[in-house]
């Protein structure tokens, strides 16, 4: 329990030394309150990523201490405050002391026990403890527990350190612009808390004092900005992680490498962004935007599965429209990169400096899918060139044979396929007939199809329910083709996407997930989309175009989202820029920038010297700023000294103890005819020098002018001396 001892152990000094030592080190209420403000400011941005009870508990404990603090104050106002209670403890004030200083009366083992209990609860919640998410949750609650008993300056320092560490943990989950802005109040509150710990002046905490402390911190942060910016641009990023990234990621959403039509998928209902695409030039039309994901070849009658990926993909060359584009892929926990059918060059992956560790390209599978070495657990950018065609050469006889096996089960479908095949022995005409059948029979596209029984889902769908979405159609289509001996398989991925008019890039959401089919025709794999035969608008206009009115559709898949949707698109555009320029400023981008600035020509020692010179220049610049700020004040002093010198030469030296107003008074009595000038000199100097009133620069400038003119208005010392 060494950690508990460190965190909750009594300060040895205050335990062994007398009351004086303990008191000198003890936090006053305003310091506790400043710490509390920092904690809440640091906790709130994190709370949304934690289980509800963790968030409520962590913030609740901090608020509890605030409530106790108020009670302490009420007690003190009644005259039983900590100082009096402590002083008069033997005389019976101990009861009050016990009540008020409750933080001092929680035995450390109680808090340690609470902490251990919380750790167990968190372990139960997450299923494990040593990992990023549970540790963040534990730190979050720990702040509250520690705050309950914070007593000494040392505790205060510890809390500040824990709190500023908590500032970066929300970025594990979200690095949006909003998340960045949400951290700023806590940054300012850090300054406020440190200032309170440093000052100990016991001034009550008011909105005004907090505002001033935050303003001072903001000034200092502004002064530190050049250093911060330089560090951000120049501090070398890591080539590979120092320690293994724990295997805890948000539950993977989106595509998977298996598919069982008939069990309703929530996939289509998610507005989450799968990836964004910036095209070089005009984006291709929606019907050509097939983003290839896992290819499912194995079917057991109910469920489709992908084969283990095998190398053997071939880059397409030939005629057709090529398009070059950059994909910003959100983490999806799968080793897949999505490409427009079909890549004509391997992707250039902006791997965040991890080319050798993770995220690098493992290969191009024979199903034309791009596979990474390890699951994509962080945002990834890659640039690709694709040839927009719908067919590619088939690989091998074995592959064709594998995909032409008659499927297991679903006897009605098999019978139907065989009878249809008798009428259309030509592959191409047979496929056309199947698509025509989908088109003419009463099949409906819906996102809420009836559940299909486990036994023969394809039979049930084709001949009974006839309601489904892309998975149902693609699956049934492939089964029909295979039953006729035509090699065919299911392809999953995304289709379409939405062009954001602000920024001109494409947003592909999870609701754009799609399944289609491909079959071997004339020795090539050719894409067929049976969904298009039933609901062509799904392909042209997206999900919203396809589903019947009244069906539930995610908000941002709607075309008539109105102002809400347009605002969302604008925010997405800002976020995309933020993403490109701030969040993804990684090792590669950094190196590119250095090359651009020709920094890579310098040896490390030269860089060190340059950085030292830069820091010195920054220090001098900030000090010069200070100097400029006080220049006005000094100008006032110079003028005043000149006035004093002139009066001294006129026979009226200022006395050491005399303030400007008193001296002006005395001079006015001596030379009443210049009373106005003396008054002006004395008062404007006093205002400039000591006045809180002349805060604004314009006022100060006016006062300076008055001072200057009034001095000029005085006669020369020799003349003045002669006057009476």
């Amino acid at each position, binding site marked *: 329990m060494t950690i508990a001892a460190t965190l909750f152990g009594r300060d040895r000094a205050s335990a062994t030394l007398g009351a004086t030592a303990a008191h000198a080190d003890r936090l006053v209420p305003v310091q506790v309150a400043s710490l509390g403000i920092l904690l809440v400011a640091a906790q709130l941005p994190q709370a949304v990523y934690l289980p509800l009870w963790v968030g409520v508990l962590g913030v609740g404990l901090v608020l509890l201490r605030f409530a106790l603090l108020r009670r302490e104050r009420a007690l003190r106002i009644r005259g039983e405050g900590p100082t009096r209670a402590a002083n008069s403890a033997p005389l019976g004030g101990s009861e009050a002391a016990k009540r008020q200083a409750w933080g001092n009366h929680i035995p450390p083992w109680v808090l340690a026990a609470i902490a251990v209990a919380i750790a167990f609860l968190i372990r139960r919640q997450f299923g494990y403890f040593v990992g990023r998410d549970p540790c963040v949750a534990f730190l979050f609650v720990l702040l509250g527990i520690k705050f309950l008993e914070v007593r000494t300056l040392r505790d205060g320092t510890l809390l500040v350190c824990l709190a*500023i560490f908590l500032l970066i943990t929300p970025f594990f989950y979200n*690095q949006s612009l909003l998340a960045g802005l949400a951290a700023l109040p806590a940054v300012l509150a850090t300054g406020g808390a440190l200032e309170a710990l*440093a000052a100990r002046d016991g001034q009550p905490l008011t909105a005004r004092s907090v505002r001033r402390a935050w303003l001072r911190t903001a000034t*200092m942060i502004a*002064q530190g900005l050049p250093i911060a910016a330089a560090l951000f641009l120049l501090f070398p990023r890591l080539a590979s992680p120092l320690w293994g990234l724990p295997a805890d990621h948000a539950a993977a959403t989106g595509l998977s490498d298996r598919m069982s039509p008939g069990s309703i998928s929530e996939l289509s209902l998610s507005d989450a962004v799968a990836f964004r695409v910036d095209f070089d030039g005009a984006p291709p039309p929606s019907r050509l935007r097939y983003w290839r994901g896992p290819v499912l070849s194995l079917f057991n009658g109910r469920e489709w599965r992908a084969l283990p990926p095998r190398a053997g993909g071939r880059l397409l060359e030939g005629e057709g429209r090529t398009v070059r584009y950059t994909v910003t892929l959100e983490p999806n926990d799968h080793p897949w990169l999505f490409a427009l059918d079909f890549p004509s060059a391997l992707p250039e992956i902006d791997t965040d400096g991890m080319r050798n560790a993770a995220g690098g390209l493992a290969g191009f599978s024979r199903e034309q899918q791009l596979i990474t070495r390890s699951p994509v657990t*962080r945002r990834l950018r890659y640039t690709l060139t694709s040839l927009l065609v719908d067919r590619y050469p088939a690989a091998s006889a074995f592959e064709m044979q594998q995909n032409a096996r008659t499927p297991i089960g679903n006897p009605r479908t098999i019978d139907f396929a065989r009878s249809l095949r008798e009428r259309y022995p030509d592959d191409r005409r047979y496929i056309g007939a199947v698509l025509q059948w989908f088109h003419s029979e009463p099949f409906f596209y819906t996102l809420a199809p009836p559940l299909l029984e486990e036994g023969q889902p394809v039979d049930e769908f084709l001949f009974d329910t006839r309601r489904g979405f892309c998975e149902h159609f693609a699956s049934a289509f492939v089964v029909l083709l295979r039953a006729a001996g035509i090699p065919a398989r299911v392809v999953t991925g995304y289709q379409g996407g939405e062009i954001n008019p602000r920024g001109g890039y494409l947003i592909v959401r999870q609701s754009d997930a799609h399944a289609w089919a491909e079959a071997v025709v004339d020795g090539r794999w050719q894409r067929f989309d049976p969904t298009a035969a039933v609901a062509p608008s799904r392909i042209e206009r997206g999900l919203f175009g396809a589903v019947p009115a009244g069906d539930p559709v995610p908000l941002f898949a709607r075309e008539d989202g109105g102002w809400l949707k347009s605002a969302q698109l604008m925010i997405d555009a800002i976020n995309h820029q933020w993403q490109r320029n701030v969040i993804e400023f990684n090792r590669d981008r950094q190196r590119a920038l250095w090359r651009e600035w020709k920094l890579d020509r310098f040896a490390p020692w030269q860089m060190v010297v340059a950085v030292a010179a830069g820091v010195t220049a920054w220090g001098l610049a900030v000090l010069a700023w200070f100097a400029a700020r006080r220049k006005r004040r000094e100008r006032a002093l110079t003028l005043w000294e000149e006035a004093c010198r002139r009066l001294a030469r006129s026979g009226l030296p200022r006395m050491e103890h005399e303030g400007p107003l008193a001296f002006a008074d005395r001079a006015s009595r001596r030379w009443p005819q210049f009373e106005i000038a003396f008054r002006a000199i004395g008062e404007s100097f006093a205002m400039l020098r000591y006045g809180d009133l002349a805060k604004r620069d314009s006022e100060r400038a006016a006062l300076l002018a008055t001072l200057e003119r009034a001095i000029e208005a005085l006669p020369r010392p020799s003349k003045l001396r002669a006057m009476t």
Partner: protein
Amino acid sequence: MLHHSRIYILPTRRGLAVIATLFLMLLTSLNYALSLGLAVTFLLGGLVAATLLHTFRNLAGIEIKPLAASDAFAGSDIVFSLSLAAGSIDRRSVAISANGVTTTSAVTAGQLATVALAVPVPARGRIALGRVTLSSTYPLALWRGFAYVHFPLAGIAYPAPEPSPPPLPAGDYGFDARAQGRGDENDLAGLRDYQRGDPLQRVAWKAVARGAGWFSKAFEGTASGGPVALEWSKLPRELDTEARLSRLTAWVLAAERAARPFALALPASAFAAASDSEHRRRVLTALALYPESAG
């Protein structure tokens, strides 16, 4: 007049803790490639760097001057006073310490502050102020800036007076015994006009407070108090040096209270009888610095 050209700055313990935390945040952000984490870490790093400049600026340009050193008896405090001129900016919580004593001061721009350092003195002798440390942790106590100055300022710690000394020695003068017999300071005889050199303990403060003017209290026997001769050689043999000095000091004070002139004869030096405060100071200094024959 001293300007601070040599100011040293080191992190405080809190500063070290914060810097260590920032380092941890840096490692975490680098490891998880959190660009925003790096941004926040560097922002706070910039803040820490900026506070260093503020700490420096809070000290740079302060003018500190020695004013005076009070005299004191061993066992009490010598008060060294220094003046602190803020110069053109406000100075906040500047700690001035010397000889293990610290006092904190804040001075607004253009103002002077007088700082008193009460240094406890355990033994008689010349007590030098020694090295004065000016330090400040303003604004956030992340850095401690400090500078050293030396002043040739020294106070004299007189020997501690013997707690209950024997009565003043009978002088060689005939009327001395009589004077001592009734010359107790409790017998107030009346007030007379204050004269320069009268001991301050005798000033009739109540009269001063009333605005009646400056008077000294005249005691019964005062007028007739003859000079006292305090001689090292006439002290009992069994007393060691410190005890002798203590007794002589106590007698000096007693003679002063009795408003009688006193003479002092030490092995190496002698002072003719007098009763003014300058004489008192010289005599006590000689006792403090014995066996040095300064003064």
